[in-house]
């Protein structure tokens, strides 16, 4: 059972007695749908996902090399007001991230002004030395950001992580909606849900808007590590929906600082690369020499301004966990405003006092490596074993600068279909923010991830989490139906 104070996205704190304003139709729908029918639709969803081949590989699990992410058909709903506040906060944060990246790879005013310590930028393993002084076309670095949020109360949203490298999951947002439209069409009659299907078009416009200025009829491609990558399905889905080529490193070649793709009709010039491979693998001449995934000469072409890379190399420092803890300062510095979205309280273990606090409270905290992602290598104190805690204790003492610690939050729950009926499960939320040459936009939706195990707080799909559709209600929705 979830702790009594946990906020539920459908019921608020009423413990199942009264739906939150605007969500009453969903509560009524749930109450009226016979369990057998719900069960049937849940099965149908799984069959559809498997037959479409929507799979997700889990690293370190050879047997389950291709698994579908469990999909739960009970949606998570945001009201129009909640969304308006959230998207304003998201856009503010992403503007600040882009200003920050442009600054640290350029004049470094923020460091000169002492707003944040210089060593966390210049000494950061994510700081891209070959990117210093490279100006991406139109000055945008992080074109696509997936900001991970959690909620603990009616107005309490917290940013967990800013994914500024190559955030994934947006295809699930779109496929989940498809599944919901097919399996529960009546929900869209009783709830005024904002559509999400414009996302591929928005993304395509964003990509083309940041093409180098000389390109008159720009060609964009999506660069994937290949079909053994865990997110390959998403890569192919997005390329397909945008009508652009899905290329691998071996399909591209750089000739005299210009990127071409090899086609059946000969070489074709490429202007924008939406790359879904990490910086380290982009170009064996500049980064890892053993990389077979990238393209020799790509960085030179980028620095020469002949090709746009989305996101730009070096953006990774924008979601570094050490930088994260300074995000409030960064937002204030570049926007002159107070941050609309809050960070989770974070102890930087590089600071002696924070380290001491962390070591004294390990069983209450979540400890994360600063350069980790995907829920790997983190420790959730309240559920960790004695041995795990001790392992982290020694690791923290050995390399304190490597870790941050955060309180364990009482993540909000959403009613979820389980083997023993409908029960609350913890969720987080990843909306997607696009930054083009002209504007910053957020698609009205996102990926809700759900921890399917009772009481679990780990929602990562790589750790066996599932997903739900996320409904954003249209303005004026409160009180409809």
């Amino acid at each position: 059972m979830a702790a009594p104070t946990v906020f539920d996205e459908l019921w608020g704190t009423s413990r199942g007695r009264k739906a939150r304003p605007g969500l009453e139709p969903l509560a009524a729908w749930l109450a009226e749908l016979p369990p057998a029918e719900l069960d049937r639709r849940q099965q149908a969803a799984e069959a559809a996902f498997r037959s479409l081949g929507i799979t997700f590989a889990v690293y370190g699990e050879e047997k389950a090399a291709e698994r579908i992410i469990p999909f739960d058909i009970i949606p998570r709903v945001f009201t129009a007001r909640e969304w308006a506040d959230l998207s304003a906060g998201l856009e503010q944060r992403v503007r600040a991230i882009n200003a920050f990246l442009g600054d640290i790879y350029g004049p470094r005013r923020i460091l000169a002004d002492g707003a944040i310590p210089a060593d966390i930028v210049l000494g950061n393993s994510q700081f891209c030395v070959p990117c210093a002084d490279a100006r991406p076309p139109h000055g945008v670095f992080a074109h696509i950001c997936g900001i991970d949020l959690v909620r603990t109360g009616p107005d309490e949203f917290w940013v967990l992580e800013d994914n500024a490298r190559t955030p994934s999951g947006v295809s699930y947002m779109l496929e989940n909606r498809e599944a919901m439209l097919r399996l529960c069409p009546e929900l869209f009659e009783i709830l005024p849900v904002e559509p999400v299907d414009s996302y591929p078009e928005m993304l395509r416009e964003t990509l083309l808007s940041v093409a180098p200025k000389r390109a008159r009829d720009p060609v964009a491609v999506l660069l994937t590590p290949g079909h053994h990558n865990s997110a390959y399905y998403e890569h192919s889905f997005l390329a397909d929906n945008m009508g652009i080529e899905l290329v691998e490193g071996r399909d591209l070649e750089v000739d005299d600082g210009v990127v071409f793709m090899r086609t059946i009709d000969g070489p074709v010039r490429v202007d924008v690369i939406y790359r879904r491979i990490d910086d380290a693998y982009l170009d064996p001449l500049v980064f890892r020499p053993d990389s077979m995934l990238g393209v020799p000469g790509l960085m030179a072409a980028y620095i020469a301004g002949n090709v746009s890379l989305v996101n730009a190399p070096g953006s990774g420092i924008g979601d570094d966990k050490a930088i994260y803890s300074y995000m409030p300062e960064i937002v204030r510095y570049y926007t002159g405003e107070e941050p609309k979205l809050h960070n989770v309280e974070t102890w930087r273990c590089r600071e002696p006092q924070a380290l001491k606090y962390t070591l004294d409270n390990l069983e209450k905290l979540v400890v994360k490596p600063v350069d980790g992602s995907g829920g790997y290598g983190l420790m959730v104190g309240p559920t960790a074993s004695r041995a795990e805690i001790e392992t982290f204790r020694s690791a923290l003492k050995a390399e304190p600068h490597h870790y941050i610690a955060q309180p364990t939050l009482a993540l909000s729950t959403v009613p979820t279909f389980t083997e023993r009926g409908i029960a609350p499960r913890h969720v987080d939320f990843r909306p997607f923010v696009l930054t083009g040459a002209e504007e910053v936009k957020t698609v009205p939706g996102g990926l809700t991830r759900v921890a399917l195990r009772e009481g679990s707080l780990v929602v990562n799909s790589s750790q066996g989490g599932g997903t739900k559709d996320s409904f954003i209600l249209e303005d004026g929705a409160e009180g409809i139906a």
Partner: protein
Amino acid sequence: MLSRTAAHLYWIGRYMERAEFACRLVEATIRLSALGHQAEGDHAWRSALSVVGAERAFGEQSEPLTPFSARRFLTLGEENGASIRTCLAAARNNARAARTALTVEVWQAINRAWLIIRDRASPGGAQATLNLVEDVKAETRGFEGALGRMLRTEGSWFMHLGSSIERGDNTARLLDVKYYLLLPPGEEVGGTLDRDQWSTILQIVSARTAYRHLYQGPLQPWLVGDLLILRGEMPRSLTASAEETVTHLAAFAARSGRQGAADRLARQRLARMQDLDIETIIQRGLHEWLHAYIAENAAIDRAIADQFRFA
């Protein structure tokens, strides 16, 4: 279109065709071996292995040849590069890598065919094996249907091209094995066993009714040869495959206004075949002729790879 995508599509065409051929081969061999004594049954399975060039791969295992071991090897054998499972796995891998160039329908047919065979541990008895290949064939037919409903652009042309090359290769091997290996020593040409075997071959290529329509008489080996080599009406004949290769290459040429070595080779082959009759082929030696065909088919395959920069 990316050259690599084109290569994947071409190989989807080849592997799906090869998988379907393996299904037909297993099906027909089960029927054939049911007709005679055990020794003849083993012989039928040995021929089936040699049709797909898998005799040696099988011999390397320390497993005696029995109808069961042969059925397992031809359907599920991962050590057999031409087993149904291996072909479908390869088709699906290519399909995954070229997913954006496929329709959902085409992808689903390939994926479903793969799911049928993926977790199968044993082919089971003869009837269970027949059910298995029937299930796979239903999906490969679904694939052909879905391919026919795709946009008629490069994507579908490459898959058609691959299957036309593969089909020619398969039919030529089938005929070759019949002539050289099928008949056990001591059996007379034209005997009962011989006739059963020819009839089995027609069944493999779904041509029993077609034969009756076109020749209206008893089964004659040279007429079966005529049907499977020269009759353009017969979809799996060598001439029909050669024609299809020319047609699909011509579609590219019409789009780009350019031709290459593959176009020339394919047209030359078709022109030569249109002037042939079955008597001439048999006089020159069917085995030699079929071998030359297989080699020429492989040369066209290489020319296609060069022309569209597959490598």
